[in-house]
């Protein structure tokens, strides 16, 4: 009987069983080129997991989200290891800049977002915790990123997202450079996304990639390069 690999992988992640997830991926890869694992297995599974997470489905916790990010990292590490022999590398979606806003020292969510974005083909420039507005925008300009992802856990630090908005506007990059925001406070109080000048947010870390895709598309529409897709 054919194995249902996506279902098996989803179950392994939901049970926070990283080793079993690796075994399922190994089994899937027998007779298949490993560089297809992201589009054909990992991404669809993470999409389902992200939807379950966003609606708070039973059994999905921060820990299982963490395990999902570790599974994504494991796959990426193996892809990098095998890149010399792979039949074709995954095309890049382009650069993005991530960081925790000024005064925020809660890195877990940001690191999970970075793992999921990398697994989905983004070039992630991760600036770490306590990142100033100037550092965010400097790195975006330096790398040509069309989107910044700013993470904040609490209301008191989330207010510093407004500083990034001001810096983007001050440099005349509004529209060209999009600002995604995330973190517990934005999930609890989604109205803060607009209040602090964010251009969008995602309900879970797994859903960051579609968010960035839409923001980058919006940026391209803004500067008239929407037809020149990067992937």
């Amino acid at each position, binding site marked *: 009987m054919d194995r249902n690999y996506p279902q098996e992988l989803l179950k392994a992640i939901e049970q*926070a069983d990283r080793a079993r997830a690796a075994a399922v991926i190994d089994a899937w890869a027998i007779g298949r080129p490993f560089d297809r694992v992201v589009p054909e297995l990992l991404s669809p599974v993470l999409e389902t997991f992200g939807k379950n997470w966003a609606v708070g489905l039973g*059994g999905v*916790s921060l*820990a299982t989200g963490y395990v999902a990010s570790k599974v994504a990292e494991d796959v990426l590490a193996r892809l990098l290891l095998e890149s010399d022999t792979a039949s074709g590398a995954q095309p890049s979606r382009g650069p993005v800049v991530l960081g925790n806003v000024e005064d925020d020292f809660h*890195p*877990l969510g940001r690191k999970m977002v970075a793992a999921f974005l990398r697994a989905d083909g983004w070039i992630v420039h991760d600036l770490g915790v306590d990142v100033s507005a100037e550092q965010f925008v400097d790195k975006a300009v330096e790398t040509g990123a069309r989107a910044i992802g700013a993470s904040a856990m*609490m*209301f008191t630090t989330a207010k510093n997202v407004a500083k990034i908005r001001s810096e983007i506007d001050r440099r005349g990059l509004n529209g060209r450079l999009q600002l995604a925001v995330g973190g*517990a406070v934005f999930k*609890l109080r989604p109205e803060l996304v607009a209040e602090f000048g964010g251009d969008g947010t995602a309900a879970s870390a797994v859903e960051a990639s579609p968010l960035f895709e839409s923001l980058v598309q919006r940026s391209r529409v803004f500067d008239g390069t929407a037809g020149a897709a990067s992937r």
Partner: protein
Amino acid sequence: MNSLERILAALQNQPADRPAFLLNASLYGARLTGASLEDHYNQAAVYAEGQMAIRETFSPDLLLSPFFIPALGEAFGSRLGTRPRQAPNVAGFAASTAEEMLQLPLPDVDGHPRLLYLRETIRILAKTYAGQVPIFGALVSPADLPPLVIGLEAWLDALLFRPAVAQALLDRLTPFFVALGKAMFSDGATGLALTANLANGFIITEAVADSLLLPNLRTALAELPGPVVFHHGGCPLVDQLARFQDLPNVVAYVIDAHEDLGAARRALGPGPVVMGNLDGAGLVHLRPEEVDHLCERAFAQRGADRQFILATSGADIQFDTPPECLAAITEAVCRTGGVET
């Protein structure tokens, strides 16, 4: 009735002159006294003056030792960062893995300056309000200590992938937790206000909670010589109450602002006190009449339940919260009880 009698009435399911209430106003004391936050979070007498000002201004029925959990991380060697109009927070961890944390010396409950600061606030407040106002010491469960010392990621990594190391660290931290809790009681605390986020299914898997964290929590709480208020710590709690029910010494549960007090009672059954559900950190955005509406909503949810304490949930009340919003809570409980403000 005085505040202590009011709280005892709630615990014993007896009538009271008005509903008891709690303000998580640890930071806000500095606003009332005008003290610098550096003094507020380093000098016990200055902090205690802030709580006394809270008591004099708003008449809450419980007072708290500093809701300053990062201080426990500092006691293990983590570095705190100061921020204007906010409590200090962990800005650098003392170690990077659970294995490294196992090698750190345990802070001396009777000698570490940061722990002595926390304890001295309890001593001052307990002496000032003996027989009148219950004083609660703020503490976290043994499993909630590592995120303050190695970060949440490193702790999740151990809990999920190296359970023997996680168990060893819990075994090491539990005596420290018990010693600090006992010390707070000996300092005069009426009870402890405890968060145990890592055992919450919102954070961790059921398997890890059941095998490691809940047994540890049960053991640790059983060692304490007094009552404990179990605080949701920012996580949803009502759906988890079945797992946390009947924990040793736990007499009350503080639920999240987004949760229903009636649902909490139905989940718990008769016995423990239910506390909540005003959004403490969110009061800064509200007008007094909106705060009054939230109080009325809470009273409607609790119905005839006498084992209820109106409380701000979530994080500390923010520094910039208009005092009129806190006064609105006082007015609402007095109006409900038919007593003068």
